[in-house]
Protein backbone atom coordinates (compact mmCIF):
# COMPACT_ATOMS: atom_id res chain seq x y z
CA UNK A 1 0.00 0.00 0.00
CA UNK A 2 2.29 2.64 -1.25
CA UNK A 3 1.16 6.16 -0.72
CA UNK A 4 1.22 7.95 -4.01
CA UNK A 5 1.77 11.66 -4.13
CA UNK A 6 3.89 11.92 -7.24
CA UNK A 7 3.82 13.86 -9.38
CA UNK A 8 0.44 15.56 -9.24
CA UNK A 9 -0.05 15.93 -5.52
CA UNK A 10 3.55 16.80 -4.98
CA UNK A 11 3.19 19.48 -7.56
CA UNK A 12 2.09 22.02 -5.01
CA UNK A 13 5.01 21.30 -2.76
CA UNK A 14 7.27 21.31 -5.78
CA UNK A 15 6.05 24.73 -6.74
CA UNK A 16 6.66 26.03 -3.25
CA UNK A 17 10.11 24.56 -3.17
CA UNK A 18 10.90 25.79 -6.61
CA UNK A 19 9.76 29.28 -5.72
CA UNK A 20 11.98 29.21 -2.70
CA UNK A 21 14.92 28.12 -4.82
CA UNK A 22 14.34 30.88 -7.31
CA UNK A 23 13.95 33.48 -4.64
CA UNK A 24 16.68 32.52 -2.27
CA UNK A 25 19.23 30.64 -4.32
CA UNK A 26 20.64 27.22 -3.76
CA UNK A 27 21.30 27.45 -0.03
CA UNK A 28 17.91 28.90 0.57
CA UNK A 29 16.53 26.10 -1.50
CA UNK A 30 18.02 23.61 0.86
CA UNK A 31 16.30 25.31 3.72
CA UNK A 32 13.10 25.27 1.75
CA UNK A 33 13.55 21.60 0.98
CA UNK A 34 14.02 20.91 4.65
CA UNK A 35 10.94 22.84 5.47
CA UNK A 36 8.97 20.64 3.10
CA UNK A 37 10.10 17.45 4.73
CA UNK A 38 7.07 17.03 6.88
CA UNK A 39 4.84 17.11 3.85
CA UNK A 40 6.89 15.02 1.50
CA UNK A 41 8.41 12.42 3.71
CA UNK A 42 5.25 10.37 3.72
CA UNK A 43 5.18 10.15 -0.04
CA UNK A 44 6.76 7.69 -2.38
CA UNK A 45 6.76 7.31 -6.11
CA UNK A 46 4.94 4.62 -7.98
CA UNK A 47 7.04 4.50 -11.13
CA UNK A 48 5.92 1.04 -12.03
CA UNK A 49 2.23 1.81 -12.19
CA UNK A 50 0.73 0.76 -15.48
CA UNK A 51 0.08 -2.24 -17.66
CA UNK A 52 2.63 -4.99 -17.20
CA UNK A 53 3.76 -6.82 -20.33
CA UNK A 54 5.95 -9.85 -19.85
CA UNK A 55 9.08 -10.02 -21.99
CA UNK A 56 11.38 -12.68 -20.50
CA UNK A 57 14.17 -12.00 -22.97
CA UNK A 58 17.46 -13.62 -21.97
CA UNK A 59 20.81 -12.46 -23.31
CA UNK A 60 24.32 -13.61 -22.51
CA UNK A 61 27.31 -11.39 -23.09
CA UNK A 62 30.60 -12.58 -24.54
CA UNK A 63 32.13 -12.20 -21.11
CA UNK A 64 29.65 -14.61 -19.56
CA UNK A 65 27.37 -12.10 -17.92
CA UNK A 66 23.66 -12.55 -18.21
CA UNK A 67 20.75 -10.21 -18.69
CA UNK A 68 17.08 -11.04 -18.45
CA UNK A 69 14.62 -8.38 -19.46
CA UNK A 70 11.70 -9.44 -17.35
CA UNK A 71 8.88 -7.12 -18.25
CA UNK A 72 7.85 -3.71 -19.46
CA UNK A 73 5.33 -1.58 -17.63
CA UNK A 74 3.42 0.83 -19.82
CA UNK A 75 2.30 3.89 -17.92
CA UNK A 76 0.60 7.08 -18.95
CA UNK A 77 3.78 9.08 -19.43
CA UNK A 78 6.51 6.59 -18.71
CA UNK A 79 7.75 3.16 -19.64
CA UNK A 80 9.51 1.04 -17.06
CA UNK A 81 11.81 -1.83 -17.91
CA UNK A 82 12.58 -4.40 -15.24
CA UNK A 83 15.65 -6.52 -15.71
CA UNK A 84 17.91 -8.90 -13.86
CA UNK A 85 21.63 -9.14 -14.49
CA UNK A 86 24.05 -11.80 -13.31
CA UNK A 87 27.81 -11.80 -12.92
CA UNK A 88 27.94 -8.09 -12.21
CA UNK A 89 30.96 -6.58 -10.47
CA UNK A 90 29.77 -3.23 -9.18
CA UNK A 91 32.28 -0.50 -8.55
CA UNK A 92 32.43 1.07 -5.14
CA UNK A 93 29.84 3.79 -4.85
CA UNK A 94 32.49 6.23 -3.64
CA UNK A 95 34.46 5.70 -6.86
CA UNK A 96 31.75 6.61 -9.33
CA UNK A 97 33.07 10.10 -9.89
CA UNK A 98 36.66 8.93 -10.12
CA UNK A 99 35.79 7.80 -13.64
CA UNK A 100 34.92 10.79 -15.86
CA UNK A 101 32.54 8.75 -18.00
CA UNK A 102 30.64 7.42 -15.02
CA UNK A 103 30.59 10.84 -13.42
CA UNK A 104 29.02 12.31 -16.53
CA UNK A 105 26.68 9.51 -17.53
CA UNK A 106 26.10 7.54 -14.37
CA UNK A 107 27.24 4.08 -13.32
CA UNK A 108 24.48 2.33 -15.28
CA UNK A 109 23.66 3.25 -18.85
CA UNK A 110 20.83 1.88 -20.94
CA UNK A 111 19.79 3.26 -24.29
CA UNK A 112 16.28 2.34 -25.24
CA UNK A 113 14.53 3.03 -28.53
CA UNK A 114 10.87 2.25 -29.00
CA UNK A 115 9.48 2.01 -32.49
CA UNK A 116 12.59 3.76 -33.80
CA UNK A 117 12.50 6.64 -31.34
CA UNK A 118 15.08 7.10 -28.61
CA UNK A 119 13.56 7.57 -25.16
CA UNK A 120 14.97 9.69 -22.40
CA UNK A 121 15.73 8.11 -19.09
CA UNK A 122 14.02 9.64 -16.07
CA UNK A 123 15.54 7.49 -13.38
CA UNK A 124 17.16 4.15 -12.89
CA UNK A 125 17.50 1.87 -9.93
CA UNK A 126 19.78 -1.07 -9.33
CA UNK A 127 19.58 -3.16 -6.21
CA UNK A 128 21.29 -6.22 -4.87
CA UNK A 129 23.30 -7.69 -2.06
CA UNK A 130 26.99 -7.03 -1.62
CA UNK A 131 27.81 -10.72 -1.47
CA UNK A 132 25.94 -11.49 -4.68
CA UNK A 133 26.75 -10.67 -8.28
CA UNK A 134 23.08 -10.68 -9.24
CA UNK A 135 21.32 -7.36 -9.40
CA UNK A 136 17.80 -6.29 -10.14
CA UNK A 137 17.34 -3.20 -12.25
CA UNK A 138 14.60 -0.82 -13.16
CA UNK A 139 14.83 1.79 -15.88
CA UNK A 140 12.16 4.45 -16.13
CA UNK A 141 11.80 6.22 -19.46
CA UNK A 142 9.75 9.14 -20.65
CA UNK A 143 6.84 8.05 -22.76
CA UNK A 144 4.33 10.11 -24.64
CA UNK A 145 1.58 7.57 -24.44
CA UNK A 146 0.15 5.00 -26.78
CA UNK A 147 1.03 1.40 -27.30
CA UNK A 148 4.72 0.59 -27.81
CA UNK A 149 5.59 -2.26 -30.14
CA UNK A 150 9.25 -2.71 -30.94
CA UNK A 151 11.98 -2.22 -28.37
CA UNK A 152 15.69 -1.86 -29.03
CA UNK A 153 17.74 -2.01 -25.85
CA UNK A 154 21.46 -1.37 -25.60
CA UNK A 155 23.09 -1.77 -22.24
CA UNK A 156 26.48 -0.04 -22.12
CA UNK A 157 27.26 -0.93 -18.48
CA UNK A 158 25.64 -1.83 -15.22
CA UNK A 159 26.88 -0.32 -11.96
CA UNK A 160 30.17 0.62 -13.54
CA UNK A 161 30.80 -2.88 -14.89
CA UNK A 162 31.66 -2.27 -18.54
CA UNK A 163 31.73 -5.96 -19.31
CA UNK A 164 28.03 -6.02 -18.61
CA UNK A 165 27.25 -4.88 -22.15
CA UNK A 166 24.27 -6.23 -24.04
CA UNK A 167 22.12 -5.40 -27.05
CA UNK A 168 18.78 -6.88 -27.97
CA UNK A 169 15.56 -6.23 -29.82
CA UNK A 170 12.13 -7.52 -28.99
CA UNK A 171 8.50 -6.94 -29.75
CA UNK A 172 5.81 -6.71 -27.15
CA UNK A 173 3.26 -9.45 -27.59
Amino acid at each position, binding site marked *: *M*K*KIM*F*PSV*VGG*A*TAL*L*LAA*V*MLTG*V*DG*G*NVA*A*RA*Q*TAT*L*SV*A*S*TAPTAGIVRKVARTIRSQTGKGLVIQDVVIGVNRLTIHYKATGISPID*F*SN*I*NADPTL*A*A*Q*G*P*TLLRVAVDGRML*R*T*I*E*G*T*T*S*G*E*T*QSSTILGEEVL*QWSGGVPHHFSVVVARI*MGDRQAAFATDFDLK
Partner: protein
Amino acid sequence: MRARCSRLVLRKPRPHSELLARGHAYSVAARPLLLGERRRNVSYLATRIRARRYARLRRFILIATLVLPVLGVGANITPAAATYHPGVYQWHSVYFPDGTYQGADKNQADFYTWSDGTESVSNLYAGISRGPYHPGTFMVYDNAWVLNYDGSTALYVNFYRTDCGLYCVWNQNIWSGWTTVYAQSQYSLMQHVIYWGCCRTASQPVMLLNWP
Protein backbone atom coordinates in the same frame (compact mmCIF):
# COMPACT_ATOMS: atom_id res chain seq x y z
CA MET B 1 -15.76 -46.59 72.54
CA ARG B 2 -16.12 -45.14 69.17
CA ALA B 3 -17.73 -42.05 70.56
CA ARG B 4 -14.90 -41.64 73.03
CA CYS B 5 -12.16 -41.88 70.44
CA SER B 6 -14.00 -39.44 68.35
CA ARG B 7 -14.18 -37.11 71.26
CA LEU B 8 -10.45 -37.37 71.88
CA VAL B 9 -9.28 -36.90 68.32
CA LEU B 10 -11.67 -34.40 67.03
CA ARG B 11 -11.90 -32.16 69.99
CA LYS B 12 -11.67 -28.53 69.03
CA PRO B 13 -8.85 -26.41 70.46
CA ARG B 14 -10.07 -24.55 73.39
CA PRO B 15 -10.63 -20.86 72.90
CA HIS B 16 -8.23 -18.42 74.44
CA SER B 17 -10.81 -17.19 76.90
CA GLU B 18 -11.21 -20.75 78.21
CA LEU B 19 -7.45 -21.08 78.65
CA LEU B 20 -7.41 -17.88 80.64
CA ALA B 21 -10.26 -19.17 82.75
CA ARG B 22 -8.30 -22.36 83.46
CA GLY B 23 -5.37 -20.44 84.93
CA HIS B 24 -3.31 -19.32 81.96
CA ALA B 25 -2.53 -15.93 83.33
CA TYR B 26 -1.19 -14.15 80.25
CA SER B 27 -2.24 -13.52 76.74
CA VAL B 28 0.01 -14.37 73.81
CA ALA B 29 0.21 -10.77 72.71
CA ALA B 30 1.13 -9.56 76.15
CA ARG B 31 3.93 -12.06 76.77
CA PRO B 32 7.18 -10.21 77.43
CA LEU B 33 9.97 -10.77 74.90
CA LEU B 34 12.99 -12.80 75.84
CA LEU B 35 16.48 -11.42 75.36
CA GLY B 36 17.23 -11.20 71.61
CA GLU B 37 13.78 -12.32 70.61
CA ARG B 38 11.80 -10.39 68.03
CA ARG B 39 8.09 -10.14 68.12
CA ARG B 40 6.68 -12.47 65.51
CA ASN B 41 3.45 -10.85 64.63
CA VAL B 42 1.56 -11.41 61.41
CA SER B 43 3.38 -8.79 59.34
CA TYR B 44 6.74 -10.12 60.45
CA LEU B 45 5.80 -13.61 59.34
CA ALA B 46 4.58 -12.30 55.98
CA THR B 47 7.90 -10.55 55.47
CA ARG B 48 9.78 -13.73 56.27
CA ILE B 49 7.66 -15.73 53.84
CA ARG B 50 8.23 -13.22 51.06
CA ALA B 51 11.95 -13.11 51.73
CA ARG B 52 12.17 -16.88 51.64
CA ARG B 53 10.19 -16.97 48.40
CA TYR B 54 12.45 -14.37 46.73
CA ALA B 55 15.51 -16.23 47.92
CA ARG B 56 14.24 -19.35 46.20
CA LEU B 57 13.56 -17.35 43.03
CA ARG B 58 17.02 -15.81 43.09
CA ARG B 59 18.56 -19.22 43.57
CA PHE B 60 16.57 -20.62 40.65
CA ILE B 61 17.59 -17.75 38.37
CA LEU B 62 21.22 -18.16 39.35
CA ILE B 63 21.18 -21.88 38.66
CA ALA B 64 19.33 -21.41 35.39
CA THR B 65 21.81 -18.77 34.31
CA LEU B 66 24.70 -21.07 34.98
CA VAL B 67 23.26 -24.36 33.79
CA LEU B 68 21.07 -23.56 30.77
CA PRO B 69 23.83 -22.17 28.53
CA VAL B 70 25.90 -25.25 29.28
CA LEU B 71 23.04 -27.45 28.20
CA GLY B 72 22.51 -25.41 25.05
CA VAL B 73 19.02 -24.49 26.10
CA GLY B 74 18.08 -21.05 24.87
CA ALA B 75 19.20 -21.46 21.31
CA ASN B 76 15.57 -22.02 20.44
CA ILE B 77 14.29 -18.98 22.28
CA THR B 78 14.84 -16.81 19.20
CA PRO B 79 12.89 -17.64 16.05
CA ALA B 80 14.10 -20.91 14.63
CA ALA B 81 15.55 -19.78 11.32
CA ALA B 82 17.27 -16.59 10.37
CA THR B 83 18.84 -15.44 7.14
CA TYR B 84 21.44 -12.74 7.21
CA HIS B 85 21.38 -10.20 4.41
CA PRO B 86 24.54 -8.16 4.65
CA GLY B 87 24.80 -5.07 2.53
CA VAL B 88 21.48 -5.01 0.75
CA TYR B 89 21.78 -1.93 -1.37
CA GLN B 90 19.96 0.19 -3.85
CA TRP B 91 21.50 2.74 -6.15
CA HIS B 92 19.17 5.26 -7.61
CA SER B 93 20.21 7.36 -10.58
CA VAL B 94 18.37 10.54 -11.42
CA TYR B 95 18.25 12.34 -14.73
CA PHE B 96 17.14 15.74 -15.88
CA PRO B 97 14.17 15.88 -18.21
CA ASP B 98 16.53 16.44 -21.12
CA GLY B 99 18.07 13.07 -20.34
CA THR B 100 21.36 14.23 -18.84
CA TYR B 101 22.54 12.40 -15.77
CA GLN B 102 22.27 14.35 -12.57
CA GLY B 103 23.60 12.01 -9.94
CA ALA B 104 23.02 8.93 -7.86
CA ASP B 105 22.16 8.14 -4.33
CA LYS B 106 22.67 5.01 -2.33
CA ASN B 107 20.74 3.17 0.35
CA GLN B 108 22.19 0.20 2.10
CA ALA B 109 21.20 -1.89 5.10
CA ASP B 110 22.27 -5.03 6.90
CA PHE B 111 19.44 -7.11 8.26
CA TYR B 112 18.26 -10.51 9.40
CA THR B 113 15.00 -12.05 8.28
CA TRP B 114 13.50 -14.31 10.91
CA SER B 115 11.17 -17.24 10.54
CA ASP B 116 8.47 -15.41 12.45
CA GLY B 117 8.28 -12.81 9.71
CA THR B 118 10.19 -10.06 11.44
CA GLU B 119 13.39 -8.44 10.30
CA SER B 120 16.18 -7.08 12.44
CA VAL B 121 17.92 -4.16 10.82
CA SER B 122 21.38 -3.29 12.03
CA ASN B 123 22.95 -0.59 9.86
CA LEU B 124 21.94 2.08 7.44
CA TYR B 125 24.32 3.52 4.89
CA ALA B 126 23.66 6.49 2.67
CA GLY B 127 25.44 8.05 -0.24
CA ILE B 128 25.24 10.82 -2.77
CA SER B 129 27.28 11.02 -5.95
CA ARG B 130 26.66 14.09 -8.05
CA GLY B 131 27.26 14.50 -11.71
CA PRO B 132 28.90 17.47 -13.45
CA TYR B 133 25.87 19.16 -14.96
CA HIS B 134 23.79 22.16 -13.98
CA PRO B 135 25.76 24.07 -11.37
CA GLY B 136 22.58 25.64 -10.07
CA THR B 137 21.27 22.34 -8.83
CA PHE B 138 21.30 21.10 -5.31
CA MET B 139 20.71 17.83 -3.62
CA VAL B 140 19.80 16.97 -0.07
CA TYR B 141 19.76 13.70 1.76
CA ASP B 142 17.06 13.87 4.33
CA ASN B 143 15.60 11.60 6.94
CA ALA B 144 16.10 7.94 6.29
CA TRP B 145 13.59 5.72 7.92
CA VAL B 146 12.84 2.06 8.26
CA LEU B 147 9.27 0.99 7.86
CA ASN B 148 7.32 -1.92 9.13
CA TYR B 149 5.67 -3.75 6.30
CA ASP B 150 2.32 -2.25 7.17
CA GLY B 151 3.79 1.17 6.50
CA SER B 152 4.23 2.26 10.09
CA THR B 153 7.62 3.59 11.12
CA ALA B 154 9.96 1.26 12.97
CA LEU B 155 12.92 3.62 12.98
CA TYR B 156 13.30 7.22 12.04
CA VAL B 157 16.81 8.48 11.43
CA ASN B 158 16.90 12.21 11.60
CA PHE B 159 19.80 12.63 9.26
CA TYR B 160 20.19 15.64 7.04
CA ARG B 161 22.96 16.14 4.52
CA THR B 162 23.14 19.43 2.70
CA ASP B 163 24.25 20.03 -0.83
CA CYS B 164 27.84 19.03 -1.48
CA GLY B 165 28.37 20.43 -4.98
CA LEU B 166 29.05 19.08 -8.43
CA TYR B 167 31.23 15.99 -8.67
CA CYS B 168 31.02 15.52 -4.93
CA VAL B 169 30.76 12.10 -3.36
CA TRP B 170 29.40 11.55 0.10
CA ASN B 171 29.03 8.04 1.41
CA GLN B 172 28.75 7.00 5.03
CA ASN B 173 27.07 4.93 7.70
CA ILE B 174 24.28 7.08 9.03
CA TRP B 175 22.94 4.76 11.70
CA SER B 176 24.10 1.74 13.67
CA GLY B 177 22.06 -0.29 16.09
CA TRP B 178 19.18 -2.69 15.90
CA THR B 179 15.54 -2.25 15.18
CA THR B 180 12.85 -4.77 14.43
CA VAL B 181 10.64 -4.55 11.39
CA TYR B 182 7.32 -6.32 11.41
CA ALA B 183 6.17 -7.90 8.19
CA GLN B 184 2.54 -7.69 7.27
CA SER B 185 2.35 -6.79 3.62
CA GLN B 186 4.53 -5.85 0.73
CA TYR B 187 6.53 -2.76 1.43
CA SER B 188 10.03 -1.60 0.87
CA LEU B 189 12.53 -2.05 3.63
CA MET B 190 13.86 1.41 3.70
CA GLN B 191 12.96 4.71 2.22
CA HIS B 192 14.52 8.08 2.27
CA VAL B 193 13.89 11.41 0.72
CA ILE B 194 16.21 13.10 -1.70
CA TYR B 195 15.45 16.50 -3.01
CA TRP B 196 16.95 17.38 -6.29
CA GLY B 197 16.43 20.88 -7.43
CA CYS B 198 17.56 22.60 -10.52
CA CYS B 199 16.90 25.73 -12.39
CA ARG B 200 18.16 25.03 -15.84
CA THR B 201 17.03 28.33 -17.29
CA ALA B 202 15.29 31.30 -15.77
CA SER B 203 12.34 30.82 -18.07
CA GLN B 204 12.03 27.08 -17.63
CA PRO B 205 13.00 26.04 -14.17
CA VAL B 206 12.62 22.38 -13.53
CA MET B 207 12.34 20.63 -10.26
CA LEU B 208 12.59 16.93 -9.70
CA LEU B 209 11.68 15.22 -6.51
CA ASN B 210 12.75 11.64 -6.25
CA TRP B 211 12.78 9.03 -3.63
CA PRO B 212 12.97 5.31 -4.05
